[in-house]
């Protein structure tokens, strides 16, 4: 047992700890602990009152036992007793116990709060600090309720000691983060800002964390901090390393404070006051200059502290995104770091460049480092650095270098670490699609992807290549040829078989003219893989076979032979057996016409954004996604991934086809509709017959489906509902939603703050919908912002018929969300339940306002408070066609002002949103950059929420 170094070692505790360390096994340890627990329990329960020291010692032992990972269910009371001890160490141990073993036992919390209250009012700074620490450590709502009023007073009181101020500032920050509603802004807030000027560096360091957090939430109230922060920063940056005494860290003056000041400035746009801005730019330049100076010490602490400030300064430069000169310097500096011998700096440089790549000013500068980054991907020994390199390549990719980057990423994949392969695959797939100029390159890339990293190719990826091939007839022949060749490899990945089966089943005819890929050769090739595949793939192949019978009648007998074999028709897997039986019957009973109808080529998929992005985002977690990806992710509006879509589609069908066990495996069947749904009556009844004849299952296939398990509660909104909503921001009429059963059309008109919407529900099937009902609800806040009344709708919709519903809308005040439309009906006995977002968005209540250039800019300037403005910079989603842009902006409802902006490329609009409560004037400016394929969108409104919402809505439109 080592000598207790200092202070009041507790001998009993030291003995106990060393006993535990001497235990040879886990069992011995548990035994020793149980013995100790029994001992402590008896002491606590004993008749003799324990003195403070013993109580402290036992509480400390309990704490030790807890920290070893054992449960502690007593001793809380004794710990609370220690809080009111006059001996500092007893109090301190009491507080430590409470902080570590928070207990929500309300009785105890009251006692704890009492003790804290006493200490806070003791005016003894050490006791006050202990109490503040306890509040910050526990940070519960009860504590916030008890002390959120008191702590600001302590913080700004003139006679509070510096050390207490430091604790109070951070304690308040903690409470503000848990319960912002309980920390009320008031007179103290302005005095907090002035703590930035405090003499004591420790006070400034602690206070600035609080100020930063408060500024993020209430930028306006705290905006005076900008100039204070700039002058403080400037004093530090220009000081000699000796000026700040103990706040100089390895020759770097106040690195923590400097970084926090730079972080605080990132809550605000660039300072408007020229002098302040000049001073700040000077600071940033000094920081960049210092990076070039020789180091004052060889210690890594020196360079870390110095570079920490440098990286924070670069973050601020990127945040401002307005000083091309500084941006390029930042980029060059990072470029140097890319080749630095410190791994940490290479890592951070790669990470930081990712954000620089999304700025239009520095995107090109970042691109010049492509070779270094590719080299890093190939040669870095540390996988986390390689991963950053891959991220950066992804971020710097554009049309000009896509082929190079995709090729490098593909070749890296062959040797990439298993941990990052899936992500790499997603990235390659996204880039290949995004920058595909010719789609044969895209098809090659994805097939290569499957060849190299088949195991990591998720469903989304291969669904997507199929969607694209189906939708683009110029690439179908090429895809068929390439996949046919790929399948010839002796060992090819199952995902390749899936893509091959699907594509040849659809487009095999396009290459059937070549005798080397005649129908029978194609079939034999596919079938040679059959036995190596899993059930879902086999199911897909069976569907491909029946498609072959339709495409190539000459293969019919061969395929029927295969279907008829025992291994198919008597397969133990019910899905495979069912398919074999049905397809065999279908091929022998149905006429060629029926067959051709049922097995018609897949219709194009509705155009939508790639679902792979969403998957990537989900995989990486919100914090790890670069700005660029987030932007794109948002544009997607949380779209479902491919698998989910399938789920969405199939839920409607699963209701009428409860016997399909694995809908996810079913590509052809479910997607085409006819073979399973009742859309084609002849096929439907035929299938029913086939089914009962086969005698596999007594349940009817379609009409007598068993009662379903779909819940009666309104379904959650469809995942694609945001995307559907976005379609209607700039237009009022169109098809809102469509699936195999139902189509919903929409027509709407708006005047002032009122609107009327006509919904048309069309039954696409030949079977009537019964108990059809719809409800429109305004969730949450929306209730008080929008008044929506829906007229009742006919409960019955005949097959092929359409009914209409009128909805009246009144806008009471500005709003963010959309009303929800829930639709329920029974189709063939199965309850259908779906919820959509009704496309009522704030811009519908715009009145256009014409104005002259002079007026526009005058108003623009009037709306100059930072929160009145919302801005977004984003990549163009569609072609940047002036006429299309104009049409969209007009559709938005604002007046499109000609000859106002000095740059004729830019668009400016003005309008007033009419709500019952108030009118909200809004101005818009859209600046396209055709070269970078980017837009900058700026909105200014008299109301901050309106700017924000409009900006969100519009960023999805271009």
């Amino acid at each position, binding site marked *: 047992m080592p000598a207790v*170094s200092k202070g*009041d070692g507790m001998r009993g505790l030291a003995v106990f700890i060393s006993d535990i360390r001497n235990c040879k096994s886990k069992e011995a340890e548990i035994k020793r602990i149980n013995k100790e627990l029994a001992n402590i329990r008896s002491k606590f329960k004993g008749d003799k009152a324990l003195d403070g020291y013993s109580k402290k010692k036992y509480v400390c032992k309990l704490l030790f036992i807890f920290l070893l990972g054992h449960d502690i269910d007593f001793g809380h009371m004794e710990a609370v007793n220690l809080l009111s001890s006059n001996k500092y160490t007893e109090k301190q141990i009491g507080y430590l116990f409470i902080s570590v073993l928070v207990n929500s036992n309300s009785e105890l919390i009251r006692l704890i709060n009492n003790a804290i209250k006493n200490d806070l009012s003791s005016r003894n700074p050490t006791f006050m600090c202990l109490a503040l620490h306890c509040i910050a450590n*526990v940070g519960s709502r009860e504590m916030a309720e008890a002390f959120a009023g008191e702590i600001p007073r302590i913080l700004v009181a003139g006679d509070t000691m510096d050390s207490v101020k430091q604790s109070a500032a951070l304690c308040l920050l903690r409470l503000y983060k848990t319960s912002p509603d309980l920390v009320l802004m008031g007179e103290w807030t302005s005095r907090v800002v002035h703590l930035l000027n405090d003499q004591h560096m420790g006070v400034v360091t*602690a206070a600035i964390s609080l100020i930063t957090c408060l500024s993020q939430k209430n930028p306006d109230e705290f905006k005076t901090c900008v100039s204070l922060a700039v002058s403080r920063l400037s004093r530090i940056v220009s000081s000699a390393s000796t000026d700040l005494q*103990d706040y100089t860290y390895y020759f770097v003056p106040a690195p923590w404070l400097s970084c926090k000041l730079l972080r605080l400035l990132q809550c605000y746009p660039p300072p408007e006051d020229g002098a302040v801005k000049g001073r700040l730019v000077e600071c940033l330049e000094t920081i960049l200059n210092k990076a070039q100076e020789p180091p004052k010490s060889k210690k890594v*602490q020196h360079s870390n502290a110095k570079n920490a400030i440098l990286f924070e300064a670069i973050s601020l430069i990127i945040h401002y995104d307005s000083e091309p000169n500084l941006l390029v310097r930042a980029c060059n500096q990072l470029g140097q770091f890319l080749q630095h011998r410190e791994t940490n700096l290479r890592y951070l440089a790669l990470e930081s460049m990712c954000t620089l790549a999304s700025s239009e000013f520095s995107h090109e500068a970042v691109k010049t480092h492509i070779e270094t980054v590719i080299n890093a991907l190939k040669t870095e020994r*540390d996988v986390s*650095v390689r991963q950053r390199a891959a991220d950066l390549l992804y971020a710097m990719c554009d049309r000009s270098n896509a082929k190079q980057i995709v090729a490098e990423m593909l070749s890296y994949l062959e040797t990439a670490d298993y941990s990052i392969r899936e992500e790499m695959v997603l990235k390659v797939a996204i880039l290949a699609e995004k920058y595909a100029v010719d789609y044969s390159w895209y098809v090659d890339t994805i097939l290569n992807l499957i060849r190299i990293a088949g195991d990591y190719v998720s469903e989304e990826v291969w669904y997507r290549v199929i969607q694209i091939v189906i939708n683009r007839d110029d690439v179908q022949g090429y895809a068929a040829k390439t996949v046919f060749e790929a399948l010839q490899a002796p060992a090819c990945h199952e995902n390749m078989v899936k893509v091959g089966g699907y594509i040849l089943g659809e487009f095999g005819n396009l290459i059937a003219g070549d005798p080397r890929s005649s129908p029978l050769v194609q079939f034999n090739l596919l079938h040679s893989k059959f036995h190596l595949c899993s059930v879902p793939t086999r199911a897909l192949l069976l569907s491909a076979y029946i498609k072959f019978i339709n495409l190539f009648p000459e293969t019919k007998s061969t395929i029927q032979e295969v279907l008829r074999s025992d291994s198919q028709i008597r397969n133990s897997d019910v899905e495979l057996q069912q398919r074999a039986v049905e397809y065999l019957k279908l091929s022998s009973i149905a006429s060629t016409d029926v067959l051709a109808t049922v097995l018609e080529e897949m219709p194009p998929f509705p155009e939508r954004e790639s679902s792979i992005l969403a998957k990537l985002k989900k995989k990486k977690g919100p914090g790890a996604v670069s700005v660029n990806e987030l932007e794109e992710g948002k544009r997607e509006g949380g779209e479902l991934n491919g698998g989910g879509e399938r789920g969405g589609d199939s839920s409607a069908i699963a209701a009428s086809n409860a016997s399909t066990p694995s809908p996810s495996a079913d590509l052809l069947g479910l997607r085409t509709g006819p073979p399973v749904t009742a859309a084609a009556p002849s096929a439907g009844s035929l299938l029913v017959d086939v089914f009962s004849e086969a005698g596999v299952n007594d349940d009817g296939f379609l009409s007598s489906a068993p009662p379903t398990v779909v819940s009666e509660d309104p379904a959650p909104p469809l995942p694609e509902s945001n995307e559907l909503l976005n379609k209607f921001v700039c237009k009022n009429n169109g098809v809102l939603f469509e699936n195999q059963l139902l189509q919903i059309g929409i027509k709407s008109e708006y005047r002032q703050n009122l609107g009327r919407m006509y919904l048309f529900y069309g039954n696409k099937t030949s079977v009537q919908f019964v108990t059809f009902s719809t409800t429109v609800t305004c969730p949450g806040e929306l209730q008080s912002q929008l008044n929506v009344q829906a007229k009742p709708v006919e409960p019955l919709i005949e097959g092929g018929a359409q009914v209409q519903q009128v909805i009246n809308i009144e806008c009471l005040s500005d709003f963010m969300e959309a009303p929800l439309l829930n639709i329920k009906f029974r189709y063939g006995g199965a309850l259908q339940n779906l919820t959509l977002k009704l496309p009522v968005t704030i811009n519908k209540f715009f009145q256009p306002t014409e104005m002259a250039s002079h007026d526009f800019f005058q108003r623009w300037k009037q709306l100059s408070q930072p929160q009145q403005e919302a801005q977004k910079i984003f990549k163009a989603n569609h072609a940047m066609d002036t006429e299309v842009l104009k049409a969209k902006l007009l559709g938005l409802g604002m007046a499109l002002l000609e000859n106002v902006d000095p740059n004729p490329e830019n668009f400016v609009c003005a309008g007033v949103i009419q709500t019952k409560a108030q009118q909200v004037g809004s101005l818009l400016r859209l600046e396209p950059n055709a070269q970078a394929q980017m837009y900058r969108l700026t909105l200014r409104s008299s109301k901050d929420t309106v700017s924000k919402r409009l900006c969100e809505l519009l960023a999805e439109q271009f």
Partner: protein
Amino acid sequence: MMHFLLLFSRQGKLRLQKWFLPLPERERKKIVKDMTTMVLARKPRTCNFLHWKDLKIVYKRYASLYFCCGLESQDNELLALEILHRYVELLDKYFGNVCELDIIFNFEKAYFILDEFLMGGEIQETSKQSIAKSVEASDMLQETMEEYMSKPAF
């Protein structure tokens, strides 16, 4: 803001755990497990940063102990490394050539020193002198040695 700070040995034994956000016990155990396996698996001379869920992990090894903290995405990694270093310096100043055993046997002191330095996951005081002074001051508030020696061991 820092979410947690963990000290663990090369064998993966946890020596100190500080949570700046209230987390259920189960989640804490999961984090400890993930951190120890992730960090201990790193090869020498790799970088000190990792991504884990939406947190940045910064770690550094001092002798037999790993110091490991979880940061939010906007926090500065290099500065976090220096937070770890400053904490080591503070322990060193207090214990005099600190070693793992000091932290095992005086775990409560290690917590107290940390509390003087960080609060709610933010830096409270960076001056080594000020922190050392307040830790010393609290030691002065204790019983005399005689008082201590006269107490029973059990």
